[in-house]
């Protein structure tokens, strides 16, 4: 084996090196605050390298594979993580976190390595290892505020339900192994999956992954974990972790489970309706902004399933495109929420009353991101949703699209509640003017550019569409 073959794993290897570098530099850097710029610059270089010098192929006997498509997915995740790191600076610089700054970066990068391995896995063993590497450090991240009851409670809820769901998923994988005697995706491509045993195995497998994407009825952990976790970890969890799970879900459905497309179409049809409707209905009654965004992200996952029902190149392209837009929209919203939480400690939607009079720029960014999440035309979110509906319409799911459009309208109602609070509602003691540091400002600018440009710059979608795979 040629040593240059390892360059196929460039992203993971580079990320591992950065993680080790931060681990060692923690010993030698006396002022822990200096780790923040080091980590952000190193990760920025890593993000840039993701676009350059790529080699594709498979190693370890097909257990690990990299293609242009997989590399694009990793680049999208890198971009999101870069924004999350920029946004977390204010929170990490607080006095209580002074001694555990490097822990945040090490754990975040570990989960990202896990997600990268999960996306580029070529068999179920590598998939499982990547999934667990993405989940276990995540629980530690969620329980980061060790003296906060809520934080440790949500860490517990995450690790318990993650362990339970991965056990269910493993049982499904073991049944698949029992039937075919192989775990490689490439050998399972031509396998006949129609026997009842394999349908059961598939259902157990899909429930394990649905937990990661937090589809209804597997969403019970979402709101509690999102509320209790530190806000920057919540944004990481709701965007990057969910995006990675959607990517591998997409790849697996379109390759390994392509022979039972009739079965999984029916399953996804029901899951999509449940997820959109219940996510929306619960989002309406929330008063805490983090729980509100949690349920809105549950509802967004329901829309993503519409793209998966497209079952061809267009379907996969719309899902990836939607995740790209979702990263910018949701991170802009979470950026504003974390900035407000770190400066004033306020998290209720009614605390946002009159925000426009004191913080006009942040209110405008929050409004744009919420409009993008709702799908209002000039912003990128509209194009994302529109393409998802187009993909589903190709296969004739008109009733589903009808329900989805009703749900998009309902979602506009609760997004507008927040916008109304910021711009119209009167408040005698609004949140004071917040001056963000330049990390935060950079992240806002990146999000703003993403929100506006991605929708209009159609080359991005055409590029994704060109490299996507279908059944």
């Amino acid at each position, binding site marked *: 084996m040629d040593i240059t073959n390892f360059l196929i794993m460039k992203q993971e290897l580079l990320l591992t090196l950065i993680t080790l570098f931060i681990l060692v530099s923690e010993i030698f850097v006396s002022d822990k605050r200096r780790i923040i710029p080091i980590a952000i610059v190193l990760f920025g270089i890593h993000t840039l390298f993701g676009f350059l010098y790529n080699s594709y192929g498979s190693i370890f006997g097909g257990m690990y594979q990299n293609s242009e498509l997989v590399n694009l997915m990793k680049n999208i995740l890198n971009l999101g993580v870069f924004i999350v790191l920029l946004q977390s600076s204010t929170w990490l610089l607080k006095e209580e976190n002074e001694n555990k700054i490097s822990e945040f970066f090490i754990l975040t990068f570990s989960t990202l390595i896990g997600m990268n391995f999960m996306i580029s896995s070529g068999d179920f063993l590598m998939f499982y290892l990547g999934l667990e590497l993405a989940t276990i450090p995540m629980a530690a991240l969620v329980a980061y505020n060790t003296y906060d009851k809520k934080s440790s409670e949500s860490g517990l809820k995450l690790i318990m339900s993650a*362990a*339970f769901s991965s056990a269910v998923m493993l049982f499904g994988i073991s049944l698949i*192994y*029992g039937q075919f005697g192989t775990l490689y995706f490439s050998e399972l491509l031509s396998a006949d999956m129609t026997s009842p045993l394999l349908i059961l195995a598939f259902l157990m497998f899909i429930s394990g992954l649905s937990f990661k994407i937090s589809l209804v009825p597997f969403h019970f952990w979402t*709101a509690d974990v999102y509320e209790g976790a530190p806000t920057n970890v919540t944004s990481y969890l709701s965007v990057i972790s969910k995006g990675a799970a959607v990517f591998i879900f997409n790849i697996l459905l379109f390759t390994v489970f392509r022979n039972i497309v009739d079965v999984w179409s029916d399953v996804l049809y029901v899951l999509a309706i449940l997820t959109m409707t219940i996510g929306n209905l619960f989002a309406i009654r929330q008063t805490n902004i983090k729980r509100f965004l949690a349920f809105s992200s549950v509802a967004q996952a329901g829309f993503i399933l519409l793209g998966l029902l497209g079952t061809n190149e267009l379907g996969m392209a719309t899902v990836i495109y939607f995740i790209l837009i979702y990263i910018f929209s949701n991170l802009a919203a979470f950026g504003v929420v974390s900035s407000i939480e770190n400066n004033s400690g306020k998290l209720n939607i009614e605390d946002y009353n009159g925000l426009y009079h004191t913080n006009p720029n942040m209110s405008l960014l929050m409004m744009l991101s919420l409009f993008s999440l709702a799908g209002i035309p000039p912003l990128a979110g509209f194009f994302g949703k529109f393409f998802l509906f187009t993909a589903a319409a190709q296969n004739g799911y008109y009733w589903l699209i009808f329900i989805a459009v009703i749900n998009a309208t309902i979602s506009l109602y609760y997004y507008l509640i927040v916008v109304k609070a910021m711009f119209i509602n009167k408040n005698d003691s609004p949140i004071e003017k917040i001056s963000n540091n330049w990390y935060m400002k950079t992240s806002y600018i990146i999000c703003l550019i993403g929100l506006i440009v991605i929708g209009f710059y159609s080359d991005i979608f055409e590029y994704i569409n060109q490299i996507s795979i279908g059944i």
Partner: protein
Amino acid sequence: MIEGIEIQHIILVSSLMFFIGVYGFMTRKNLITMLMAIELMLNAVNINFVAFNKYLHPENMQGHFYSLFIIAIAAAEAAVAIAIIINLYRNLHSIDVEDVNNMKH
């Protein structure tokens, strides 16, 4: 392969173990016991993998290796879970799951 024991018997045992684990996870109130229930589920999967490997696909060792990895990861998972439970105990002075209810809406 063991003389006189069919694969159906082994699958029966592993399925029973798995669902006892599910039942235990749903009904138990103590967090450590819930963790034990999850271990039961994972061990059921291990039995499945090893039995399938031995009885149905003896030509390669994938099932054995998979179960080894499951054992290792289950240990890591339990370590993190117990660390979080200890931290929770410091904050709440209880490891009863009914007391872990700060967030309810």
